[in-house]
């Protein structure tokens, strides 16, 4: 019994990381109706950037965020204004195929530069530190930090969206870019800022990923799928829903792994398909997807 409780608990904490993966994807879709297929590869890219910073300067992975966050944010802004903005329009094909092509380019560039070897960001003994809840039940300090960070960041982004002029510009552009432009909002700039914000989250998620598991250039697509499943299960337009989606995915995967290690990822996908069959708009939808 206690083993199952443990599986579920670990799953909830893993869900925090998935929610971080997913929030960036949800913001981009929310503001500009773009699904970035390169999202998972950007998470891996951020982990590699952190690796370079860590190896180059000798700082720890968390301190490396001081460099990784601005690098990814500027990269996101430039990419959005230079490459992705021209693809946005009534036709769905160009943004999809451009981000798909970029995904192949990023994966293979990483492969060329860093080889297919698996890498890890090391934080020393801290990584294995845990708190005993009861005699047989413990939670890792680091997974707990990831989960709390995810909750705090989602709360902060909700505040940005609801309370600031930037958030108002995001919401206005999302509702109607043409009218927003008439009101003096430059939507190209706003889209650039949204992508930059999404890549700030990607930078944090990438460093957490790199500390938590081994990574190599090929793991991006599966992170994209986890992020996507969390977004759809949670329901479009709701960041707290996205957190719930991430948790459901994490719990399903951990329960699957408990039954048979081969079922871990499969169980997550099946949970997603079941939610899709029963509640196509997700569990906590706020906007209608049309």
């Amino acid at each position: 019994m206690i083993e199952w409780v443990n599986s579920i608990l670990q799953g909830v904490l893993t869900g925090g990381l998935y929610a971080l993966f997913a929030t960036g994807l949800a913001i981009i879709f929310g503001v500009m109706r773009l699904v970035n297929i390169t999202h998972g590869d950007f998470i891996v890219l951020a982990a590699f950037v952190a690796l370079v910073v860590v190896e180059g300067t000798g700082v720890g992975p968390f301190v490396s965020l001081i460099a990784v966050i601005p690098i990814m944010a500027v990269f996101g802004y430039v990419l959005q204004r230079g490459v992705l903005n021209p693809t946005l329009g009534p036709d769905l094909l160009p943004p999809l195929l451009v981000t798909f092509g970029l995904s192949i380019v990023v994966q293979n560039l990483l492969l060329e530069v860093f080889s297919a070897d698996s890498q890890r960001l090391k934080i020393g003994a801290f990584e294995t530190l845990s708190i005993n809840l009861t005699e047989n039940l413990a939670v890792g300090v680091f997974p707990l930090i990831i989960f709390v960070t995810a909750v705090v960041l989602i709360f902060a982004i909700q505040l940005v969206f609801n309370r600031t002029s930037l958030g108002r510009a995001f919401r206005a552009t999302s509702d109607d870019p043409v009218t927003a432009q008439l009101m003096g909002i430059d939507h190209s700039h706003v889209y650039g800022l949204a992508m930059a914000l999404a890549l700030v989250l990607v930078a944090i998620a990438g460093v957490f990923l790199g500390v938590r598991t081994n990574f190599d250039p090929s793991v991006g697509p599966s992170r994209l799928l986890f992020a996507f499943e969390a977004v759809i299960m949670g329901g479009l337009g709701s960041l707290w829903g996205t957190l719930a989606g991430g948790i459901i995915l994490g719990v399903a995967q951990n329960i699957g792994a408990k039954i048979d290690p081969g079922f871990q990822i499969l169980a997550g996908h099946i949970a997603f398909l079941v939610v899709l069959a029963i509640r196509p708009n997700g569990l906590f939808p706020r906007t209608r997807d049309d």
Partner: protein
Amino acid sequence: MTEATAQGRYSVIRSTRASRGGAVAGILLLLILAAAPWWADRATMRLLVEIFYILALAQMWNLLAGYAGLVSVGQQAFVGLGGYMLFALAIFTPVGAAWSIPLAGLIGAVVSLPVAFLVFRLRGHYFAIGTWVVAEVFLLGFAQIQTLGGGSGISLPVSVVRDIASSRSGRDAVIYLVALAVVICIIAIVYGLLRSRHGLALTAIRDSEEASASLGVDNFRAKLMIYIFVAFGTTAIGALIFLTKLRISPAAAFDINWTTTVIFIVVIGGIGTIEGPIIGTLIYFLLREPLAQFGTWYLILLGLVAVVIMLKAPQGIWGLVAERWDLRFFPVQRRLRFEPPD
């Protein structure tokens, strides 16, 4: 089809000079290709077989994405399913390898119904990623089936291979002719479909979903029919692919690269035309031969070219050619010719 009015005579033109000349050249080319077992060596025939099945896959994806607007990045689900159905039918039933190909296609069409039930709930971009999840489910699911080799895969039994033809050159010839037949059937069916009234509906959907719906096209039904048909074709092609490979594993069968390659081919050649995938396939293989040694750089180059084409010339290479010289070898459109009264 001619209609006379007081103002003059209208007639609907459905062929072009290029299409009539192209038909003659095409038949000659087909005869030469059909005779390949008598003039080509083994390596050439293997390369041609690969070109045939990649071209067939490209035509299927183009029909799905270019005409029905269903951008799937999970078509490897059906490629892999076809491969596994070939192996399952050949190992567990008395059906021969050749008949397994259309049978696998039928199974693919049946399987595509519940898949469509799920992925059609996702719109636009999310549809694409949803199809990818389904392909992953297929991969992980088939890895659990121990009678089909589980995660490590399975080989086609020698007795099944011998059944195709007793000698190695005989087998090469049979597989070659089957591959040629498959690609010709696929292109002929796509061409016929696009020239029919269903094709008119699809072209309307491609150009504007709202306008086609307002003119009485049932968009959902048309898209579903195309999805099922493409699943049929893709699964059959998958069976053909793994007939040439003689060995299958989940990682090879459900490899995303089946879809990636085809997307690059269609985007570079020209999406939404029949000629585009043909041009794209030729370019892909012409570049691959000298550039394959660069491995990852070749993929980076293809990715960048696809991105640039999507940004600067989304109609692709054939789109530019057709626009510039008004050249159409597979005319699917109807043109109105008007002659004023004498």
